[in-house]
């Protein structure tokens, strides 16, 4: 991805446009409201008493928050939730923006959206950790895992919007792929998102999980950049 002052400026224009569509519209607020309601419910679910053997509703709440935030960010990136005025990769390919500007813009806008959604969920994690006399740093690390996984999935979803024409095929591929990843929690080991987001998961597992999903996101946005010239030609 070629950089430069122009790229940054134009990429930020894409970010601003995406954020306007996702926050300044009625649907955007509705989505945030639904996310807030899920955070509230999961927060309440996590207040349940822990079991003597170490089983804790905090684990369920953490995974729930990962799924909810991951779903909203991925669905928004994959245009499964259509925000009025939102410009997808296909639309931007037809605009004067360069491939790099589009790829950077999308990467940044998904990053910012994932940050906002993760930030919405973080106080619930902080509350549940404080309830169990845990350190606030633990909730921050969990939130970092949630952010990385959401951004990675968002990158994959963005790449699918550029690579797959059919909306149905795209939906099947997106949710099928995510479901396959999430279902492999038992096979993949401690670095799997469902394991890494668990409270008090090993630091190396969390780091590895974050690196894997950051790599997935970076590769996907690199794929978007590679895909745009073909879209422009088409």
């Amino acid at each position: 991805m070629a950089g430069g002052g122009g790229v940054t400026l134009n990429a930020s224009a894409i970010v601003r446009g995406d954020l306007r569509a996702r926050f300044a519209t009625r649907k955007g607020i509705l989505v945030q409201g639904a996310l807030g309601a899920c955070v509230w419910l999961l927060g309440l679910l996590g207040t349940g008493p822990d079991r003597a053997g170490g089983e804790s509703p905090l684990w369920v709440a953490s995974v729930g928050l990962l799924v909810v935030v991951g779903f909203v960010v991925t669905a928004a990136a994959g245009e499964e939730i259509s925000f009025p005025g939102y410009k997808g990769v296909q639309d931007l390919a037809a605009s004067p923006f360069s491939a790099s500007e589009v790829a950077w813009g999308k990467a940044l806008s998904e990053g910012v959206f994932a940050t906002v959604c993760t930030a919405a969920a973080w106080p619930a994690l902080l509350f549940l950790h404080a309830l169990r006399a845990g350190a606030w740093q633990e909730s921050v690390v969990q939130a970092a895992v949630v952010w990385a996984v959401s951004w990675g999935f968002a990158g994959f979803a963005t790449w699918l919007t550029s690579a797959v024409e059919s909306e149905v095929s795209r939906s099947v591929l997106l949710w099928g792929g995510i479901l396959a990843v999430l279902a492999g929690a038992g096979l993949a080991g401690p670095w799997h998102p469902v394991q890494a987001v668990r409270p008090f998961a090993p630091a190396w597992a969390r780091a590895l999980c974050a690196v894997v999903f950051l790599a997935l996101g970076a590769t996907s946005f690199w794929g978007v950049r590679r895909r745009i010239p073909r879209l422009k030609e088409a």
Partner: protein
Amino acid sequence: MLFLLFALWFSPSHLAAAWAQPTSVRVSLGWDGWIRFGTWNPVTVDVQVDRPVRGWLVVEVPQEFGTQRVRLRHRVDLPPAGGARWHLAVMLSDARRPVRASVVLEEGSPVASAEVAPQPERAAASVVAYLGADPPTPPQEVSSGGRRAVVRLTEELLPDRAAAYASLDLLVVGELDERRLSEAQRRALQTWVLHGGRVVVAGWLLPTAPLSGWLSVAQEVGAAGEAAGLRSVTDGPLRLLHPLPGSQLVVERSRTVAVWASRGLGRVYAWAVGAARVPPDSPLWYLALPAPLPHEGPPEVESRPRVPLAPAAAGLGLYVALWLVAVWLAGRSGLGWLAAGLVLAASAAGMPVLADRVRQSSAVLEAVWVEVAVEGTRRTYGWGRTQAPYRGSHTYTLPSVEAVAVSGGFTEVEVAWLADRVLVRADQAAGERLRLRWEALADVPAPQAEARNGAVVVQGAGGAEGLAFWGSRQAPLERSGASDQWVASRWQPVEPHHPALEAFRWAQPGAATIVEDRPVVAFPPGEGRQGWLVVVGSR
């Protein structure tokens, strides 16, 4: 310059500091080192300070092979060159690890400390203490197994909390100088006797002194001649005892060897000889020593911790609402992101506070109380159970109590005696069960019950519904014609497992015998409390 140094050295403040006792802590365990594990034992702590000290006396008691620590904290406020003595009642269970007493300042820095290790070879199954010069010679073996310790005390070492007497079977009084007793010590001894303690008076007491007069069951009117060939006492002179009203004689071969009388649920004996002249196989010991009875508390009830959802729902709901407003503002203006940041910062500060509130609301102690009133003295026995919903520390509040014991699952417990309550803070893992046991002297007037013409008359009950038990009968309390007077006369067969009788048994293991002997009136607990007030009446 040299003159200045001399002047400084001999300045009054410097001299006072130099002559003052250095700060020191002394701690002694049990009855002169003898301990009964699994019950309350006296722990005496003496503190001397050379400077003003405002802070805490912390007595650290190890439990469960050192894996648990119980810290008992009492306020210390001493002037320069001041000193104080604390008589505590402590439940001891670890025979190998030392008990540590320290004085710490308000901010937590230590001033002085001392520790004393219990000696496993000084664990006794029964303890007989005596005041005076003549050591008594009770049977060395306890009928239920284990050995009996005989311990010499001085008046100053008598506990000032009735709970500490729980490990004492019998107090033999040869001499008693009441001027050396505090009011709290006198009251504790009387409370112990009223609630089942036993005292033998084997010497001469000054009947005009308040405690001695209360302990007098017989008048010594001279010599009764020589005892010879008696089983109760060895050969030698006998004192002639004249029983006071309500007292009963113990006679062997036409010789009065002892006189005894009830004092509440306890008994006081007067022996016609000194304690050293009652041999170990004397029947007087079997009369005076209490029969060992197993102590049981309320049964364990399987329960799960309940977490109050309302504060969590309100707090999280408020956050979500504020976040939505901030995000809505952010969609309209860039300044909205500042609002979102502020909401996030406020929630970072507020969530721990909310969590603390939910934690405290979820740490609920299920308490059972049994208050036993004997001759107007009301003593509270309490048991509390709780299960930690989360790991971390949980705080429970008890009213002012004189002794607290903690068992169950925890790593560390702090029991702090404040002016009007006792705070118990326990560090626990999630799901661990904590058990508390406490005893207290209640400073509220107790109803009085007495038997009259086959009925039981109760005064001062204040209109509560009650039930009288006597022998194998029970009867409901009914209002009589007189004001604040209640009568139980419609007798029915007793329910042997009535909850009130069960509760009385938790406080007094000999409850069945007491109910056979005298009327007992039980009042159900007040609003929101589990337990009973049991008034032991007079015949």
